[in-house]
């Protein structure tokens, strides 16, 4: 027992002596990432995008309105307990603590949802996390900007209906969902079940166990079942394996639609030609280089300060850029009200809740073509219901659809129901949004 104490003190010493050397007045943003393990293929480009945009702001503008940004990366390995440790490690750093946290893992998001209100740190979960956290009255600290899995499920069904020639054609059809057996993969199921009831198609969920390299039986069952469409909710190596296995059992790839987390370059390239025809949703954006990329190239990469390699302009890299863009815009919004200094988590939360990224602002920041305007509010922490569909032609992603808008008439009751359940379980009194300012 004595040794134990010794160890604890040593750890303390280690932490303390190397006390953060952040200069006065820096805005600290923790970056939870994973560059190793089964999910690194997707984790790396996202992290690179996230970091490169922050670097761009520092290099080009000297930060946000002159307030320098400081950040630190912490490897979570997509594991919840390591994510929580990273969060605890980083949340108090910098002048004002963490501005916001993007866990990039639905599991970590669930764990941090319990901790964020106590620590007063907003969570930015761009297109992932708790779908019901759209309801800001119950989840004041969660910001599931741009889209939830339920939005994704809805858009996917809309696209299926469109390819079939109308919602009435869905009747009696079979749609299967191959999903990562975790909170992430399970999230869309209630929405899909609701749609199955509404449009009278047969829905079947086929789980794939972490990490997802063994999918033979799943695809054998699909071959025997012959569903009309297969939706894919995978992450990391699971995506590539799914597409390969689909090819191995000769399931037509153009009848597969992946969520926006299953629609990036690392997901399709390992399958080679086998991936040709595979479709995936776009969280508004796709791959490609836009205004902001030129700026990053000029101000960051060419100075040797960036992280991007081959992934520059890839889907997940771009999503990382957007993630940092939205986060820093929230800080900017908060600064407009609270002054040009490092914002606290609470102030950033206000910034998120009053975030309004207009067409003009998007153009100015160089994100034109990557995203549509986004406006969050107390009642709506998601702010957008837009998505498109892209298809892999063997070399690159091609946009093949117009913008879809998710059908909120089905999704909103689900959000209301699940968030009410959460509030009851946690004894939360929902914020009165009419009074929130």
């Amino acid at each position: 027992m004595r040794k134990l104490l010794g160890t604890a003190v040593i750890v303390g010493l280690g932490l303390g002596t190397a006390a953060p050397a952040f200069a006065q007045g820096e805005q600290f943003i923790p970056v939870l990432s994973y560059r190793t393990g089964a999910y690194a293929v997707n984790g790396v480009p996202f992290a690179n995008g996230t970091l490169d945009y922050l670097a761009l702001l520092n290099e080009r503008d000297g930060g946000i309105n002159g307030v320098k940004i400081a950040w630190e990366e912490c490897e979570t390995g997509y594991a919840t307990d390591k994510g929580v440790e990273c969060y605890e490690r980083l949340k108090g750093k910098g002048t004002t603590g963490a501005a916001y946290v993007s866990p990039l893992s639905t599991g970590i998001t669930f764990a941090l949802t319990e901790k964020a209100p106590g620590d007063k740190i907003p969570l930015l979960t761009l297109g992932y996390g708790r779908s019901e956290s759209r309801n800001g009255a119950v989840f004041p600290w969660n910001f599931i900007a741009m889209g939830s899995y339920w939005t994704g499920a809805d858009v996917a069904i809309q696209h299926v209906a469109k390819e079939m020639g109308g919602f009435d054609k869905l009747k009696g059809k079979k749609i299967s969902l191959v999903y990562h057996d975790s909170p992430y993969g399970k999230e869309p199921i209630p929405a899909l079940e609701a749609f199955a009831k509404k449009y009278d198609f047969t829905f079947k969920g086929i789980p794939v166990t972490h990490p997802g390299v063994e999918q033979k039986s799943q695809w054998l069952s699909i071959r025997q079942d012959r569903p009309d469409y297969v939706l894919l909710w995978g992450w990391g190596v699971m995506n590539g394996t799914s597409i390969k296995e689909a090819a191995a059992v000769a399931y037509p790839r153009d009848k597969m639609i992946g969520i926006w987390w299953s629609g990036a370059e690392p997901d399709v390239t390992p399958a080679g030609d086998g991936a040709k025809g595979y479709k995936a949703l776009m969280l508004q954006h796709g791959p490609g280089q836009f205004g902001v990329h030129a700026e990053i190239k000029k101000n960051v990469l060419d100075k040797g300060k960036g992280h991007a390699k081959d992934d520059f302009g890839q889907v997940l890299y771009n999503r990382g850029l957007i993630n940092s863009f939205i986060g820093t815009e929230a800080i900017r919004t908060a600064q407009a009200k609270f002054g040009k200094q490092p914002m606290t988590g609470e102030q950033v939360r206000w910034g998120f809740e009053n975030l309004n990224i207009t067409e003009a602002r998007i153009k100015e920041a160089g994100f034109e073509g990557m995203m549509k305007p986004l406006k969050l509010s107390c009642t709506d922490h998601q702010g957008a219901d837009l998505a498109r569909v892209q298809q892999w032609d063997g070399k690159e992603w091609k946009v093949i659809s117009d913008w879809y808008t998710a059908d909120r008439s089905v999704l909103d009751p689900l959000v209301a129901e699940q968030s009410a359940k959460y509030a009851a379980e946690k004894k939360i009194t929902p914020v009165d949004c009419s009074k929130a300012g």
Partner: protein
Amino acid sequence: MLYRETGQFKSTYSADMGIFPLRQDRNALFVLLAFAFIGVPLLAHFHVWPFGSEYLLRAILLPFLILSMAAIGVNILIGYCGQISLGSGAFMAIGAYMAYKFGTGMPEIGLPPLPVLVSILLGGVCSALVGILFGIPSLRIKGLYLAVATLAAQFFFDWVFLRVAWFTNYAPSGSVSAPELNVFGWVVNEPLERYLLCLTFVTVFALIAKNLVRGNIGRQWMAIRDMDIAAELMGIRPFFAKLSAFAVSSFIVGVAGALWAFVYLGAWEPLAFSIDRSLQLLFMVIIGGLGSILGSFLGAGFILIVPIMLNLVPSELGVPLSTETISHLEFIIFGSLICFLLIKEPHGFARLVTLMKEKLRLWPFPY
């Protein structure tokens, strides 16, 4: 010179059977407990470095305490009774999920939500029951075969908690979040409060474990471990001894699992109790020392803190390494350390402490 047993005479057997027969050891324990229960809260309250930071309490001490407790449970099974288990993670999960069910009530059978403390203990009881069930094969299967067989429990329960929606109160995502931690009206929320709650649990369970292993049942366990055939011929029933070890071990591990979920994570999914957790616990008891309660603490400390330190050090020292490299280095150094420790002292830290004490007892004379 301070560490001497001379002059300490025992006139009763009960004095001789104390946990620490030596006065110096006893005093050291009291000082440590006093520090943990009174000192740490005071230091934290006055924000005395390093206890002022939440990080130490929440991200290091809290998991350390809970995993120490789980390691004690695992040590009872592996270290004392000699039954290798790779399924400890599953028993943590059973504790966590059943505590959650008791804590949120089971309307199907008309059970209202129970107080959180009762739920946590009941979670442990459920874990113990399942432990007994999965202990039955140990009557026939031995050694590494048993170890792999216990993986059946691990994978089976991983799946159960993913698939059976009842355990998660039909949450669509399958992730559940702990009910409010209300211990007899005391709402445990602040890191310090959480720390004290866990500390109390760990102290009580460490004491219980220590009592058991130095009593009759502990001797039965060790007899089974050292020579099961001879033990049976001595009138020790393997059935009772092995299953009681499974029960006690799973109970403690289950309670630790409930604490891990309720107090540390807050919200969790089955992945929090995966095979990695089982291996981690196994490492803790082996590096710490099989058959030693103290070793469980030392092992937990080492296995938990070393990777964090390895991860922290480069960035704190400003060594320009990418996260990726740090993470790979962490793996390499950690793995090498494990091999090194196993080679240098296969009996773990606990043996090192014993050796150190022996040296100290003789100091300053070498013989």
